[in-house]
C-alpha cells in the first residue's frame, strides 16, 4: 500500500513544484519577451514575441547610460558587501572569542536593531549623510549600510561551532588574536564567508529605497535609472524591460557561477 502511494505522491509533488517553478520563471520570461517586442507590439499578449526587435535595447541605451549605471551599482554592491562582511566577521569574532560582561546584551542589541524599521532610522541617517557631505555620492549609499545584523548572526553561529581547541593551539603557538583571526579562523570559514558575501551582494544590488533617498542625479545606480522610464506621459515598457533585463544579467551570471554556494547560503542561514 505504502509502496504504491509513494510514486504517486512524488508525482504530485513534482507537478506542484513544476507549477511553482513556472510561476516563478514566467515573469522573468515575460520581461525578456517584452524587451524583444517592437514598441508598437508592447501590449501584445502572444507568448512568443514576433517579429523580434532590439529597438527597446536601442532606446534604453539612448535614454540612460546603462554601462555606467551598472558599473556604479556593482561598485556600491561590492563595497557594501565587503564592508558588511568585514564588520560582521569582527563582531562575530569578538562575541565568540572572549567572555566579557555584557556579552549577551551586546549581541541582543545587534539583534534588536532588526526590530527597528528602516523608516525610523532613515531620517537620522539622512541628516548624518548631509552633515558628512556625502549626499549625492556613492559613498553616501554605502556608509550607513556597512553593518549587517544578518551577517553578524550568521557568522556568530558558525564561530560558536568553531573548535576552541584550534584557537587555544594558536594562542599556545604565540599568535595574537589578530593573527589567529586571519590565519586560523578565516581560512576555515571560507565556505560560509563566501555564501554570506553572495547573499549580501545580492541584497545590496536589489536595494532601492536608500539609494533613491541619497542619489539625486541621473548618473547613479541602475535601480534609479529604471525609474526614469516611468513618466506622466506614460511608460516606455519596451525600453524599461530591456534595461531591467540587462540589470538582472550580472546577478544571473553570479548565480550560475556560484549556484552551490548560494543554495548553501540560503539553507545554512536557516538551519544552523
Amino acid at each position: 500500500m505504502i509502496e504504491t502511494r509513494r510514486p504517486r505522491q512524488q508525482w504530485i509533488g513534482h507537478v506542484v513544484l513544476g507549477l511553482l517553478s513556472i510561476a516563478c520563471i514566467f515573469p522573468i520570461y515575460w520581461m525578456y519577451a517584452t524587451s524583444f517586442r517592437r514598441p508598437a507590439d508592447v501590449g501584445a499578449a502572444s507568448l512568443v514575441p514576433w517579429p523580434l526587435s532590439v529597438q527597446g535595447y536601442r532606446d534604453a541605451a539612448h535614454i540612460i547610460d546603462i554601462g555606467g549605471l551598472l558599473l556604479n551599482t556593482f561598485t556600491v554592491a561590492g563595497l557594501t558587501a565587503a564592508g558588511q562582511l568585514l564588520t560582521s566577521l569582527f563582531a562575530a569574532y569578538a562575541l565568540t572569542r572572549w567572555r566579557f560582561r555584557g556579552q549577551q546584551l551586546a549581541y541582543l542589541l545587534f539583534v534588536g536593531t532588526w526590530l527597528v524599521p528602516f523608516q525610523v532610522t532613515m531620517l537620522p541617517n539622512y541628516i548624518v549623510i548631509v552633515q558628512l557631505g556625502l549626499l549625492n555620492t556613492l559613498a553616501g549609499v554605502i556608509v550607513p549600510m556597512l553593518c549587517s545584523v544578518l551577517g553578524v548572526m550568521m557568522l556568530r553561529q558558525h564561530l560558536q561551532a568553531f573548535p576552541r581547541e584550534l584557537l587555544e593551539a594558536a594562542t599556545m603557538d604565540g599568535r595574537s588574536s589578530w593573527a589567529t583571526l586571519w590565519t586560523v579562523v578565516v581560512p576555515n570559514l571560507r565556505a560560509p564567508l563566501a555564501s554570506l558575501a553572495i547573499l549580501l551582494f545580492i541584497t545590496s544590488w536589489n536595494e532601492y529605497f536608500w539609494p533613491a533617498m541619497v542619489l539625486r542625479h541621473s548618473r547613479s545606480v541602475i535601480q534609479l535609472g529604471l525609474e526614469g522610464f516611468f513618466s506622466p506621459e506614460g511608460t516606455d515598457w519596451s525600453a524599461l524591460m530591456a534595461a531591467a533585463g540587462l540589470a538582472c544579467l550580472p546577478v544571473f551570471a553570479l548565480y550560475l557561477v556560484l549556484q552551490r554556494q548560494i543554495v548553501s547560503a540560503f539553507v545554512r542561514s536557516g538551519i544552523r
Partner: protein
Amino acid sequence: MIRHWPARAAAVAATLLSLTACSVGTPSGGPSTSVATVPELAPDQKVSITFESYNLSTAGPWTDTFNELLDNFRKQHPNITVTAQKPGGASANGVNNSMSSLQSEVAAGNPPTVAQEIFGDLDFMVDKLHAHAYDDLFGRNAVQANFGGAHPFADTAKPLGDVKGKTYGVPFVFSTPVLYYNASLFRAAGLDPANPPANWDQVKTAAQAIKSHTGKDGVYIDCLTKVSGDWCYQALVASNGGSVLSGDGSKLTFADAPAVEAVGMARDLVGSGVMPQLTQTQAFPQFAAGNIGMFLESSSLQGNFVKGAADGHWDLAAATMPQFGSKPAAPTNSGAALFVTASDPAQQRAGWELVKYLTGDEAYSIIARKIGYLPLRTGLVDDPNSSLASWVAQNPLVRPNLDQLKRLHPWLAFPGDNYVQIRNGMLEAVEKSVFQNADPNATLTAAQQQASALMPAK
C-alpha cells in the same frame, strides 16, 4: 564627562529627543522675517545653488529639456553654478516624492535653493515649510516686473502662487484639461470632427455613436482617480458651479450638490458603457493606440498622443473642456510653481536669477515646444519674431489650452498638515462612485465627514 550610566542614558535620551524635535519641528532653514531686500550679487561673486525639480525624475525629453534650460542659464550667468537634482524618494513618479523630499532636506538643514512644487502643496509650503515670500526677499516691484516684460504673464496665471497678497511661488509649468479626440473615429461614427462636443450631454451622445459604429470606447476622463490627482477633478466641480473648498478655505464642500452631480455625470458614462474602467496607466496607451474616441487630459500628454496618432495613422484633434449644460466651463491649472527655499542671501539672489530665467521668454519657448506645457507668457504665441509663433501655427493642438488660460480657475490647495489625506479621501470617494458604482451622494458625504476632522482648527 558623564560617569554614571543613568546620567549617560539621560543624555542620550535628551539627544534623541532633540533630534526628533529637529526632524519634525521648525526647519533649520527658518522663515524669512526680514523686510530689507536681499542684496544684489557683486559682478565677480561666485555662487553655487541647487535646483530641485520632479521633471528631472523622468529620463528622455523632460530631463533633456531641463538640462538644456540650465545649460543656457549657465552660459548667461557664468558666476552662478547650478546643480540640478531630482527629489529623493521611493515612488517611481517624481511628483509624489517632491514634498517628502523637501521636508527631509529642510529637516537636515540643506533645502535646495529653488524647489519646484505643485500648486496643491502651496498652503503647506507657506504654513509649515516657511517658504520665503518673493516680495520680502526682492521687493514687490521686482516680482511684479518679472511678470511683465515684452511678453507679460497671462493675468490669470500671475496670482496662482500668491498667499495673502504675497507671491511665494512663481507659476512655472502647467496645463489645463483639454478634450483630445480621435477625428478618424469621429468620421467612422458619422460625427463631424470640426464640431467636437461642447457639453457633457454631447460627449455622451458622441461616445455612444463611436461605441455603436466602431466598437471602440467612447470617452475617458482622467480626473477621477487618486492617481490622476485632484487638479482636473476640481475643474469638473467648478464647471458645474461648485468647489471642493469654501471661499474662505475653512470648510470642505466636495460633497455639495454640484460635485455630486459632476461625479454622477461621470458615473453615468461608465454605467452606459461608453467609458472604460481603466486605470490611468492603461488608458494612456489605449487612447494613443486609437482605441478611445475622446480623452480629457493635461496637454503634457500631447507629445505621447501625437506620436501614437502618427504611428497608428489616425488624426488627433483637440477641443476645450466640455461644459455642463449652458454653464461656462471652469478649467483649472495643473502643474507647479518655483519656490526659493534657501536661507543664504547670496543663494537667494542667485536663485531669483534662475527663477527669472526659467519663467522668461526663452525658457517658455523651449518648454512649450518640447514638453507641451503652456507658455505662460502668451504674447510669445502672437509675436511674429518669436520661434513659438511659427511653432503654434504648425501645431494648432495647443490652441484650446491657450484659450482656456484666459478663463482659468486656480487649483485650490487644501489647508493644514493633513492636506494629502483630505485630497486622497476625496478622490477615493470619487473613484468608488464612478468606477465601483457606489452612490455618489452617500460616498462623498461620508468622505467629507471623515476629512472634515482632518481640517486645521480655526
